[in-house]
């Protein structure tokens, strides 16, 4: 961390110098971490995640088949695999947007869909789910910003209505996050007036504002015009390198995956085909399906 004195996204931003000055708080630690990491509360420990025997079906289609998978606290895990292999579904199960038919999911040692009552694991109440879900945030492929709110309100909404911050505190947190993702001049804009890359950066700021321990990114650059991909990847890279948040990223950006991933998991048919450090998966894949997939993706690029 200390060897990264500057946020390494080169996003042109007229607010950059302003941030440099503002964040030179006297009581700030001597460390010169990335402003984004600081604004995102990088002192928070990431939580581990554990899927055990998770099965998810849509009708006759079994999308996740008894999935066992563990993510270590602070780990940056990249999920790759062909379209329809269940990558999105994994993230959605973790975000509680899909309820699994079987299995358990643990976040930071706590059961997500179950709770213990009289020594028995029973289906969790909504209250329990909400309490565990607090630790998780998600960024979506299609942004899903709230179109009737300004960029600032999109980001401050959660802190205000969910975390219970005052209006001023929430706005201050939102402003700080928007500034560090390079949108210091877009507070009052509605999403319809932002480019795809800007929308996605607002969405990242919105997720970060909840101070999650686990962040989920589902192909967050896939809906962007090619020239806008870089500005979003820069923000992600900064987060990956400078925070202790646990990150699960589904992406087709193989170069990026290689760069920031602690581990790459190759997925197919709702199962882990192969996993390992990026150098191994990209440099020396063991499984034929991985080789085929990588060749298909790289051919496209």
């Amino acid at each position: 961390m200390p060897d990264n004195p500057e946020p390494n996204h080169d996003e042109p931003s007229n607010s950059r110098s302003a941030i440099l000055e503002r964040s030179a708080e006297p009581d700030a630690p001597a460390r010169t971490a990335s402003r984004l990491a600081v604004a995102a509360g990088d002192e928070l420990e990431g939580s581990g995640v554990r899927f055990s025997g998770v099965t998810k079906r849509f009708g006759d289609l079994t999308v996740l088949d008894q999935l066992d998978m563990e993510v270590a606290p602070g780990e940056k895990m990249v999920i790759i695999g062909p379209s329809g292999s269940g990558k999105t579904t994994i993230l959605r199960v973790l975000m509680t947007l899909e309820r699994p038919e079987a299995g358990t999911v643990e976040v930071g040692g706590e059961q997500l869909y179950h709770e213990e009552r009289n020594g028995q694991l029973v289906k969790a109440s909504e209250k329990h789910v909400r309490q565990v879900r607090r630790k998780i945030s998600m960024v979506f492929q299609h942004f899903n910003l709230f179109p009737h709110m300004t960029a600032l309100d999109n980001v401050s909404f959660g802190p205000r209505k969910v975390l219970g911050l005052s209006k001023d505190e929430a706005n201050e947190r939102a402003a700080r996050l928007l500034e560090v993702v390079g949108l210091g001049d877009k507070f009052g804009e509605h999403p319809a007036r932002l480019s795809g890359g800007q929308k996605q950066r607002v969405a990242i700021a919105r997720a970060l504002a909840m101070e999650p321990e686990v962040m989920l990114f589902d192909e967050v650059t896939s809906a962007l015009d090619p020239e806008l991909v870089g500005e979003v990847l820069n923000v992600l890279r900064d987060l990956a390198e400078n925070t202790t948040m646990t990150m699960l990223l589904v992406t087709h950006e193989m170069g990026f995956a290689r760069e920031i991933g602690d581990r790459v998991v190759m997925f197919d048919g709702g199962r882990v085909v192969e996993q390992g450090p990026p150098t191994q998966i990209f440099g020396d894949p063991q499984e034929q399906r991985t080789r085929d997939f990588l060749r298909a993706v790289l051919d496209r690029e």
Partner: protein
Amino acid sequence: MLEWNLWRALLDGTWITVQVTVLAALLGTILSILSGLAGLSSVRAVRWANQVYVDFFRGTSAIVQLFWIFFALPFFGISLSPLLAGVVTLGLNMGSYGSEVVRGAIRAVPRGQTEAAIALNVTSFDRMRYIIFPQAAVTMLPPYGNLLIELLKASALVSLITLSDLTFQVQILRVNGSASTTQLFTIALVLYFLLAMGITGLVRAAEGYLGRGLEIGRGARRS
């Protein structure tokens, strides 16, 4: 032209028409929202009861409903004043149509909005209140404006239960020969039209206000 006291009678009638319309619109709006939400309830009995209400009030004649509430309900020990009977009937009626407007508009809000709200851990009540409903309201407004104008026109029914609204006054003046039929009905047409224009203007203003940033109709709502 008409004498002042005739104008006076027509304007008094117009004022009653406005009162009936506004009060029934308030009731109708509340019922539309409640009924629209009930139609989306995950509880089957709630959806079913709601459907009975909607089908009944859309499927029977408003004038018969009005007579029933005004003339038949007293036999069950409930006597309503003409104003209250008119407001209740028209409100229940509007609610049964508005129900579908509300339900349809809420269902049209993209699923991703609910999902983003869940990802922020927003409670289901706040989700509806701050995220879904405000967006749906923009879609609701044009058909809602139509319902308000329908309501204004239907308010003339209250003249049949002795409430002295605009239509009632016109009939009185016509029958007692105070002014020519042509003159009276022309004036009534103009007055109703002006009221309807007022409603249209209000709804437009609300659309502009709620639609800020949405760039309606340009696909911007997907974001």
